[in-house]
């Protein structure tokens, strides 16, 4: 008995066992292969079936390349800033609080805006 005959006999036996008609049985053809067979998960670098390029340059999960012609994706904006006790970075002008903190800490007082005190404009004798 050839292999095909044996398989056909197995199918007929199954149909006999469960009360069906084996004449209507049709075997699916395997799908035509596209590209390389997926023998293993190629996303895992170093796996036997992983392509060499994937090993050399692992895909970063945060970088998603986009076609140059596509419109830029909208940047998600948070609806409300996360609560934080950290205040905004200091502006150029020292605050009254900065002067107080510096004095209490024994540090030199922060210069006023632009450093243009009265003496900075005083004309020096030539």
């Amino acid at each position, binding site marked *: 008995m050839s292999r095909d005959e044996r398989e056909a006999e197995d199918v007929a036996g199954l149909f006999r066992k469960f009360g069906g008609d084996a004449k209507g049985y049709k075997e699916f053809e395997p799908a035509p292969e596209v590209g390389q067979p997926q023998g293993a998960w190629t996303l895992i670098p170093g796996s036997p079936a992983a392509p060499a390029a994937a090993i050399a340059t692992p895909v970063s999960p945060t970088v998603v390349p986009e076609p140059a012609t596509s419109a830029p994706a909208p940047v998600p904006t948070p609806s409300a800033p996360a*609560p*934080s*006790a*950290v*205040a*905004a970075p*200091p502006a150029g002008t020292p*605050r*009254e*609080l*900065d002067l*107080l*903190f*510096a004095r*209490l*800490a*024994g*540090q030199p007082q922060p210069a006023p805006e632009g450093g243009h005190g009265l003496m900075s404009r005083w004309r020096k004798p030539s």
Partner: protein
Amino acid sequence: MTDKDALLSYYERRTCSAQWMEFNRAFAAELSAGLPPEDIRQLFRRIGERIALALPVERCDTVEQLRDGFNARWEAIDWGFATLQEQADHLHIVHACSPLAMAFGPDTEDWASGFFEGAYQTWFAAQGTPPALRVQAEAAPADGSPQVMLRLGRLPS
């Protein structure tokens, strides 16, 4: 005790609900029995830090703005209010009408004030204080006035 202190004391008695007072006092008694005071103080300091992080104060320019920012946060959770007063070498902080003394009992002031050290230190740090400046609680007033005294200044060398 002045009339003002009597008023503060009156309001302070109403800052902790009857629902939680016995629980809190038993909790404080267990803490006191099980841990050295400095450890409990450190625990309360960290709780204060968490509260301050949860209730951030926006960047302020003046002492008055900062005081108002603090008090807006305290007001929101019914935790009394603070006054700030500049001194030559420190900023004096007086916190009144907090529920801590009533909630945990009069014998816990030594470590319960660590809560305010943590909260104010975190808020001041967010305003840009140099690392040399620390918030430290001062000894409780001898006249029994219901206030917590703290100071922002350099640590004594």
